[in-house]
């Protein structure tokens, strides 16, 4: 069995040669350690250094960088659909009806004001979703391919983009009179659709985070 220093040397080799993700590096360390142990067992006169040099020679830096990158592209967005259980779909439909009915029933002016209120509430809720997500997921010190912490700027971009679209739509509604109430039905639909997508995304990230925390606990407690 290799000692701590020998394992550290193996880990340092991969880290210095482009394997930044801890989880993939850890597997490579175990892999190479097994090869080294076998070599040293079958030839007791072979030193660790000689066995190490001989073993790591077959890894090119380019190959290791590619290996690291490939491990980081494994996020499967199709899994986000699992969030939409029958119960959640039903809740979303009920919420949609609860939001759209006042827009139909209220007089045009009041409907417009309600629409603006929805947009404001939607923006606040989306912002809160993003910030609370970051708060409950403190990033591990070292990177993991199984859980990469989302950048707030990247996460905020779609929200800003959506706000621009919705804002423009509401602005158009408030300046064009009379407003056809059917047009307002799209507003809650768009807001609920984007928020549900965000919730589904966060739900999957929550699961990834928990799995990473269970598999690599020490990275989260440093």
């Amino acid at each position, binding site marked *: 069995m290799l*000692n701590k220093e020998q394992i550290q040397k193996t880990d340092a080799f991969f880290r210095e040669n482009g394997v930044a993700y801890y989880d993939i590096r850890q597997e490579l360390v175990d892999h190479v*350690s097994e090869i080294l142990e076998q070599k040293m067992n079958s030839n007791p006169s072979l030193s660790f250094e000689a066995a190490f040099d001989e073993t790591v020679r077959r890894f090119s830096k380019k190959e290791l960088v590619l290996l690291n990158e490939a491990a980081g592209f494994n996020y499967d967005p199709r899994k986000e659909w699992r969030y939409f259980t029958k119960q959640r779909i039903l809740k979303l439909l009920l919420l949609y009806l609860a939001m759209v009915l006042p827009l139909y029933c209220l007089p045009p002016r009041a409907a417009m004001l309600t629409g603006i209120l929805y947009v404001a509430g939607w923006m606040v809720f989306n912002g809160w979703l993003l910030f609370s997500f970051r708060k409950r997921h403190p990033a591990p010190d070292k990177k993991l*391919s199984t859980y990469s912490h989302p950048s707030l700027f990247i996460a905020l971009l779609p929200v800003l983009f959506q706000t621009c679209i919705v804002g423009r739509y509401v602005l158009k509604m408030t300046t064009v009179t009379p407003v056809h109430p059917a047009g307002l039905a799209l507003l809650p639909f768009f807001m609920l659709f984007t928020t549900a997508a965000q919730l589904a995304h966060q739900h999957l990230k929550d699961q990834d985070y928990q799995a990473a925390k269970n*598999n690599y606990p020490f990275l989260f407690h440093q």
Partner: protein
Amino acid sequence: MNKSNLYKGCLEPILLKLLKENGRMYGYEMTQKVKALTAGELKITEGALYPLLHRLEAEGILEVEMENLGNRVRKYYSLTASGKKEQARSMIELEAFKNTLQLIFNPKLA
């Protein structure tokens, strides 16, 4: 033609079959098992193995279990319930692929 290119598309069914037969395995163990089964004909490189294992894990086909070995940690892979279905499906696909090749290279046997 490079021989390893011919095997490339078969790596996934090979790994799934190994895991079906052996329960749980770790990366190095898989490479050694394949090497032994094929008498050294097929050598799986780390660059091909680990990205594939990680992808299968992300797709929910494999589940992992970590084991502390003292100075290092070992990651064991095993098939999930959907992984078992995927394994059965991949065997059918591989069989169909073999039959198609027979039609081209050995029509008398097909």
